[in-house]
C-alpha cells in the first residue's frame, strides 16, 4: 500500500494552483475547522489530517459545491462527516471529547486542579452526548471561544439559529445536571426545576462542595 505513494507521486506535476474562490474559502474557514476537529480528535495533527481530507473532498467537487443552496453549510457537513469517519477509523469514540478537560484554561489556573479537571470532564462528556449540531455549536462557542457570528458563518446558519441551538443545548445540559443532582441528593426536590438550579447545587462528583465553592 505504501508503495503506491511513490507511484502516484512520480506522476504528480508541479503543484497546480487552487481555484481562487476555493483558496479564499479555505483561508477563511480552515482555522475554525481545525479548532473544531481538534476537540473531536484530540490532537492538532489529527485535526489537520481530517481537515485536509475534508477540503480535498470539497476541492474535488468544488464546482458542485458552489451550486449548492448553501455551500458553507454543505462544506461543514463534509467536514463533520469526514472527521467522524476519521475518528472511527482510529477507534475513537465521541467520549474522546472528554479529553478536552485536560486543556482548559481554568485547569492551568486552578487552585484545585483535580476538582477542575473533574468538572470539565463531566461537562465535556455531557456536551459529547448532545445532538451533533448542538455539540458543534457548544464546542466552538464555549470550548474554543468563537463568537456567535463566527460560528454562524462557519456552519452556514444564521446567528439566530446559533443562539437558539445554544439555548437548546444549555437546556439539555441543565437537565442532565439536574437529573444527576437529583440522583445524588436523595432529598426530593419539589421545587420547580428553574428554582432548583441555583441553590445548593451538589456536584455530581464525590467532592461535593467544590463546584459550589467556586460557583457561589
Amino acid at each position, binding site marked *: 500500500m*505504501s508503495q*503506491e*505513494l511513490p507511484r*502516484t507521486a512520480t*506522476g*504528480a506535476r*508541479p*503543484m*497546480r494552483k*487552487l481555484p481562487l474562490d476555493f483558496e479564499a474559502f*479555505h483561508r477563511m474557514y480552515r*482555522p475554525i475547522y481545525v479548532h473544531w476537529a481538534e*476537540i473531536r480528535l484530540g490532537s492538532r495533527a489529527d485535526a489537520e489530517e481530517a*481537515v*485536509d*481530507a475534508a*477540503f*480535498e*473532498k470539497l*476541492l*474535488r467537487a468544488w464546482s458542485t459545491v458552489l451550486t*449548492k*443552496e448553501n455551500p458553507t453549510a*454543505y462544506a461543514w*457537513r*463534509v467536514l463533520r*462527516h*469526514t472527521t*467522524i*469517519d*476519521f475518528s*472511527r*477509523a482510529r*477507534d475513537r*469514540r465521541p467520549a474522546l471529547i472528554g479529553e478536552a478537560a485536560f*486543556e*482548559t*484554561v*481554568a485547569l492551568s489556573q486552578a487552585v484545585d486542579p483535580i476538582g477542575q479537571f473533574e468538572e470539565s470532564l463531566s*461537562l465535556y462528556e455531557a456536551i459529547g452526548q448532545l445532538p*451533533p449540531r448542538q455539540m458543534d455549536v*457548544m464546542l466552538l462557542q*464555549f*470550548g*474554543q*471561544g468563537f463568537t456567535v457570528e463566527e460560528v454562524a458563518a462557519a456552519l452556514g446558519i444564521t446567528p439566530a439559529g446559533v443562539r*437558539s*441551538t445554544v*439555548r437548546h443545548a*444549555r*437546556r439539555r*445540559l*441543565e437537565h442532565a*445536571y439536574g437529573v444527576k443532582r437529583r440522583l445524588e441528593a436523595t432529598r426530593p426536590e419539589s421545587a420547580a426545576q*428553574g*428554582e432548583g*438550579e441555583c441553590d445548593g447545587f451538589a456536584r455530581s462528583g464525590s467532592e461535593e462542595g467544590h*463546584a459550589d465553592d*467556586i*460557583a457561589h
Partner: protein
Amino acid sequence: MPMTSHIDELLARARLRREPYTAADIDAAAARLATRAAVRWDAPEEPRCPTPHTRNASAPADTDSAGESGLGKSPVGRGAADESSADEHSSGSGQDREGSVDESSAADDLQTLCETVITHTEALADLRIFLARALPEPSGARVLGCMLQLSEREESARFWWQYAAGAGDPAASYCLYLHHRALGEHGAADWWHTQHTQTDVVADAEAGPEVEITTTLRILRALKPDDSPVPEPVNAVLHYVPAAVAYVDDDLDLPLPDPDFTDRVRALTALTATAPASSTPTAPLVGGSAEAPRRSRKRKPLPERRRPRRTATGST
C-alpha cells in the same frame, strides 16, 4: 432566568487553551491540498494518498489486519466503527466518495422534494388551513417545513417536520430522513427512515418502495430546468415565510409563525391568484381576513389563533 447560572459558570470554565492557527499553517495546508489535488487529478483511480503526516503511514497496517495488529490504537472496541474503519486507507477513496455522495445526494433529494412539495397544487391550500384549527395541521406543517428548508432555515424546518411526522405525515418523515442524512446524522436518519417506512405501510402499495422515491426525485430533478419558475403565489409565500417564523420568545424555544400568519398567507395566495394586479403584499395585509377570504374555503375565522399556538407547543 435563574436556571442558567450554574451551567453558564461551568461553560465559562470550559474554555480551552487555543493554540493559534497561523497564516503560515494555512499556507502550508493550501500547498498540501494543491499537491494532493494535482496527484488526484492525474491519477483519479488511485486510493487516497496517504497524508503528509507521517504517523498515518503506519496506519494502513492495522486496516489490513485489524484484529491482530499491535498498532491498533485500542482493543477491539469497534462495533459500529467497523463499516468505516477502513475509511482513509485502502478502500478509502471509494468509501469516502460513497459516503459523501450519500450525503450530498440526500441534500439534493431534499431540495427537490421540498420544491416538489411546495409547488404541489395543494400546498398553499394546506398552508392556508395550517393554523385555522385547534392544532396546526400536519400537512400544513410539512409544507411550512419545506418552505423553511428552502429558505435555509433548516432548524425551524426540522421542528415543523417533526411536528408533522409526529402526527403521522409520511412525507415529513421522509424529509427528516433526508435532512439528517444530509447533515451526516446517520443514526437519526435511519430512525426517521424506519418511521417513514412504518407510517407508509398503507401507502406502500400505491407508492412503491423507497427506491422509487429517490429515483423519482432524481428524475424530477433532471427534468427541472435550472430556472424553472415557481408559481407566483408560492413565490410570494416563500418570501414571506422565513421572516414570519421566528423564535419569538426566550422561554419558548420554538420557531413559531407570526400571529397573523394564516391571514397573511391567505392574503398572499388570494391576491396573486384572484387579483394579480392588486396592491403590494406588504403592509395592509394584517387585516387580510378582510380581503382574502374569497378563496379561503370557509374555514373557521381566525380570532383565537393565539391559543392554538400555545396548544401546539404544549403538545410537542
